[in-house]
């Protein structure tokens, strides 16, 4: 009846760390299952030869989104108690572009680099060291980046709130978009494969 369980005080801080570990195991397991411990598999997304990144990510988003919607609809989960990272337009646009560039240059993102490291990828390990160096740099540059970090503050905001649309309509639109995308991904992959065969 009352999810999120932690926010209703059904277990404490110590137990939440065990939950964190268990959830992490699930997360890492499926990342590796999907092939996300391999930089070549990940980066193929951006050379249009294998769109697994898009497929896995959007399937996960759709699954969790539908689960949340139905649980909240049944009254089993209070959606308003789930933490939303506040929207800061400028910081998130610039951060997203940098992150996307770093993805192709380095071959991973933070979560997948751990999966790569765990499965013996030396470049994954070096990438993790790069993340640590980057975090240090960000902390050192924070006084300069502070303005950008805080720019475009819109508070915690969802797409239904932003566009003044019913939640269910946005959910349906995302499902349609994802299914359309999956179909398109298949077409693109087919075309790249045909291109390779032609030489």
């Amino acid at each position, binding site marked *: 009846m009352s999810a*999120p369980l*932690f*926010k209703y005080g059904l277990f404490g801080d110590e137990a939440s*760390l065990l*939950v964190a570990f268990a*959830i*992490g195991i*699930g997360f*890492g397991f*499926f*990342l590796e299952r*999907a092939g996300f411990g391999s*930089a*070549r*598999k990940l980066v193929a997304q951006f050379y249009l030869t294998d769109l697994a990144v898009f497929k*896995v990510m959007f*399937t996960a*988003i759709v*699954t*969790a*989104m539908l*689960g949340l919607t139905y649980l909240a609809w049944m009254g089993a989960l209070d959606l308003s108690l789930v*933490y*939303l*990272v506040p929207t800061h337009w400028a910081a*998130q646009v*610039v951060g*997203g*572009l*940098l*992150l*996307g*560039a*770093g993805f*192709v240059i*380095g071959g*991973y*993102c*933070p*979560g997948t680099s*751990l999966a*790569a490291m*765990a499965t*013996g990828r030396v470049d994954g390990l070096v990438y993790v*060291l*790069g*993340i*640590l160096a*980057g975090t240090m*740099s*960000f*902390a050192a540059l*924070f006084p300069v980046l502070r303005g950008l*970090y805080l720019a475009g503050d819109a508070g*915690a905001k*969802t*797409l*239904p*709130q*932003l566009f003044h649309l019913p939640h269910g309509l946005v959910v349906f639109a995302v499902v349609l978009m994802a299914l359309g995308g999956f179909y398109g991904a298949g077409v693109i992959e087919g075309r790249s494969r045909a291109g390779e065969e032609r030489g």
Partner: protein
Amino acid sequence: MATTIPHRAQPYTNPYLAGIGLGLVLLAAFVTMGRGLGASGAFSAFVAWVANGVAPGYVARSEYLSPYIGDGSSHPLKAWLVFEVVGVFAGALLSGLLAGRVKRTIEKGPRVSNGVRLSLAFAGGMLMAIGADLARGCTSGQALTGGALLNAGSWAFMMCVFGGAYAVAWFLRREWT
């Protein structure tokens, strides 16, 4: 690692089935904790902890790192994301072992040397960390978690990640293809 086990690595799972698995893990995080997954925050906590050991004064003055230390009442690494990230490592190792995919190797295209690839991995990691710190999250904390929550900023972020990646992909084709 030196002993080569004569059995082939299994192929990867159907992306849609892996995606559903990932989505259910994410849903479990929402239901139990009221929060999603993450990764980059754990790295920030780790960096804050190391820096605090080396130069506590610097960390105390740092507006970005000091919140990860807090008032000192609890250990900086005793944080939800840190435990989760340790789990990610363990889970990936488990899956890799079960599928015979754990192998010491460097992922790269055929036209690039190991040295160049590792330098680029380091540079990419740095750039990614700066982007993630700026955006308050990475592909897991923003794109995946915020995507499922229909968080407005996360969707803008996700579009920009794909945009940024496709924009530089052509220039880096020698690294991968």
